[in-house]
């Protein structure tokens, strides 16, 4: 007998084995594995079938009857759609509110929200001087008549000479 026939026969006979099948199984590891899997699935189905089916919650029948109050199917399915979509909007709204509350309630600094490097960078004034920018310090003395500037230490040097 071919393996395919044996396996078909096992499925057909719900796992029961005749003498020729048993003889084949003794010498065929592939068919033995098939029988083993078949029994595993049978045990699994039995276990699943014994599982308690959830009961309807209180008021189920009333809810169904209430749904039938409007016999127009399009309208009712439209309402069901809206109820479904509405529920999602409510969940999304709650999530956004929660995130906003977290944002507001978290301390302005600390391990979660310390001052960011970018904020520090913006807060600092940045000196922007080029190499030839005039520096109006104590060392600089502008000459208003000629419009030129003169450094004090140069004037002092000239005076000493």
């Amino acid at each position, binding site marked *: 007998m071919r393996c395919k026939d044996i396996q*078909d026969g096992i499925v057909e006979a719900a796992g029961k084995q005749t003498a020729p099948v048993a003889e084949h199984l003794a010498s065929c590891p592939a068919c033995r594995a098939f029988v083993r*899997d*078949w029994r595993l699935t049978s*045990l699994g189905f039995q276990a699943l079938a014994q599982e308690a089916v959830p*009961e309807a*919650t209180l*008021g*189920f029948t009333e809810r*169904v009857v209430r749904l039938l109050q409007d016999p127009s199917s399009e309208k009712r399915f439209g309402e069901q759609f809206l109820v479904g979509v509405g529920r999602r909007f409510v969940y999304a709204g709650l999530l956004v509110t929660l995130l906003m509350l977290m944002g507001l309630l978290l301390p302005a600094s600390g391990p979660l929200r310390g001052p960011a490097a970018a904020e520090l960078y913006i807060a600092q004034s940045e000196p922007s001087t080029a190499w030839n920018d005039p520096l109006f310090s104590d060392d600089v003395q502008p000459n208003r008549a000629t419009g030129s500037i003169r450094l004090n230490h140069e004037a002092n040097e000239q005076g000493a000479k």
Partner: protein
Amino acid sequence: MGEPVTPTPPGSSTVLGMAGNGNWMADSRRNSSPEAEWIQRCQDGDREAFGYLVDRHRRRVFSLVYHILHRHDELEDVVQEIFVKGYLAIRSYNFQASFGTWLSRIAVNHCYDYLRRQRASRVSYYWQMSEEAQQELEGRAEKESSRQPDAEQQAALKDLINKLLDRAPADDRIILALKELEGLSIEEIAEILKIRTSNVKVRLHRARKRMLADMERLRQGR
């Protein structure tokens, strides 16, 4: 958790719920003319009368949908939709099949649409079992032990089947659930699916073989 919502059906003392194990489809024609009367009232537009039918058939519809979809979270919503569909289509019910069969057909079609829309795969406990635990379970299956698997093994087996059903095509999943989990006969399945009994046998055979082939693929990590 039965909360009767409707008055007593006309002409009888009502027993709400299922007629008994295996008799749920036998039927509004044979033994429950009160049910037929309620159906007719629904067909005339009496929505309250439908509450009686919901009470009478809801356990079975819950079981059917649960075994096909295995979704705790959406079970009640789906069953509710099925009953609404049933009410909207009740004028087309012609008393040829039992009302239970007719409603089951609606339920199966609804589940079929649901499965086509949502195909989710779940993490399997069986495939996360230790090598030794898997070998023990497989050894038990090989020896055809008469001892029942313990709770942990049962949980693993259930998860194995759920995983395989999740991966199975909707047709296979439905026919396997009807036969193996609902325990319906070939004839009952044929009536619900509106196909011949020989077709049911062929489909079941193929579905089982595909499931076993898929189990082998899962084991090899594909």
